[in-house]
């Protein structure tokens, strides 16, 4: 019952953006089933986010992969109907720290662009997915400090996820205490990305940076070996 109150169109306000950088390990150890599962998971992520009216107009996703090189596979963009997920290939070694540094740099550039264009934005997310340990030449202490200060200074949120073979102790070491790294069940990237899209939908549907309940709704939806 509207009782005669206004129920027509709302003002043409643009949506505020949430930058999310997925930093994905595509080193040689991901060959075979893991990389196939990762590609399937990314497609699922696209389906789930593009199906949510608010998330699809607020969430800007960037895909960074790392192996012996770091590559920006897709720059920041809304996961709308026109978005195409790339087909990732596994090869090379594990330049994880280089990948994370590129993500931090990209997030900073995106935030500057938001500011220059007069946009307010949600605190960005950097999401790491890896199945191994970084190459020996990677500077762990440097990235650990960069992540801790970035999260403490509210520049970005950092979530790390490992699949079988990942050095979970190292992920815990570089993660901020506010979000412990999680280990996936096997290589079930499809369930993981369903969970991630659901979490991102909740975050981009919120308004005030409050803590969001991102726990999986049931055990079947839980991609992790322990509950978030």
């Amino acid at each position, binding site marked *: 019952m509207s009782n*005669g*109150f206004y129920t027509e169109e709302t*003002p043409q306000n643009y*949506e*505020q953006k949430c930058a999310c950088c997925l930093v994905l390990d595509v080193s040689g150890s991901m060959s075979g089933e893991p990389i196939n599962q990762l590609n399937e998971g990314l497609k699922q992520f696209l389906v789930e986010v593009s199906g949510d009216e*608010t998330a699809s107009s607020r969430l800007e996703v960037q895909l960074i992969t790392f192996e012996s090189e770091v590559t920006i596979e897709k720059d920041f963009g809304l996961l709308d109907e026109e978005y195409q997920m790339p087909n990732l290939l596994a090869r090379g070694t594990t330049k994880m720290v280089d990948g994370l540094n590129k993500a931090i740099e990209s997030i900073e550039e995106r935030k500057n662009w938001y500011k220059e264009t007069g946009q307010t*934005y949600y605190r960005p997310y950097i999401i790491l997915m890896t199945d191994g340990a970084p190459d020996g030449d990677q500077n762990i202490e440097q990235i650990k400090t960069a992540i801790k200060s970035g999260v403490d200074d509210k520049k970005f949120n950092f979530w790390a996820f490992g699949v079988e073979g990942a050095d979970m102790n190292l992920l815990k070491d570089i993660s901020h205490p506010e979000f412990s790294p999680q280990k996936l069940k096997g290589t079930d990237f499809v369930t993981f990305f369903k969970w991630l899209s659901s979490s991102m939908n909740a975050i981009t549907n919120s*308004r005030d*940076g409050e803590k969001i309940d991102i726990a999986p709704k049931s055990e079947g939806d839980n991609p992790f070996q322990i509950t978030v």
Partner: protein
Amino acid sequence: MEIIGASVIGKKHLATNSSCEDNCMFEIYKNIGIIAISDGAGSNEYSFSELGSLTAVETVINEVKYLVDRKIIRSKKILSQPEWEKISLKLHKTIYEKICEKAIEIGTEANTLSCTLICIVFTKKYVLSLNIGDGRAGYRNSKGNYFSLFKPFQGDQVGMTVFITSKIVLENPELYLSANTFEDKIESVFALSDGMENYCWECNFYNEEEKKYYDPNMPFATFFDQNIKTLKDLLKSKSKEETINAWRDYIDNGHPKFKEEQDDKTLVIGIV
């Protein structure tokens, strides 16, 4: 003169069995309309913010009434801008002290009761506004023109604002309190928390030429035109309590987008 308003819980707080952190109070006292709304800061860090927002609105209503009793605020004569600024600084100090008292009563820090504040004092001749934080407020004059009462304080990131208890506000209140006076033929006034702004306020537009986003900070006239008319009609046929209940239902779920809003929502309208 009449004032209608309500605060309703958002979808997120409903889902987590939390309470509504917005509060509003309003009263017509000796021909002067007084509206107070406050939005609790939310999140675990500010776990008593709903108590903070309640304390803020109760205190500011009582303090303004006291100023009316002392004839410092009069219905027929607007305060000067410096006078209202001085009073606003005192109001902030008093509200902060009340919040500190509440915090001591329940054994917590004042910061856990963090909240914003909008206070509007109005007659048919003027509007006085005080703002600390975000949210929006405006008025319509007898010619049907709309105006905003202040520019909300917002940071770069969504939801970033200042609160009554914020250190920077306490240290530099003159920088973070927005106190304004408007002399005009007032027809209606309105105040809302940020949970309502996307639906009734022009606040995030895009300038094609400059390739930039900007905040027009203007009431959405078609929204207020119809709702003010409807409220006037309802008040003729229903009691004030029934009208407030109808208004509460409306901002809770009377528009498809209201139902989906995660944040708590407050919207108060005063009609001269």
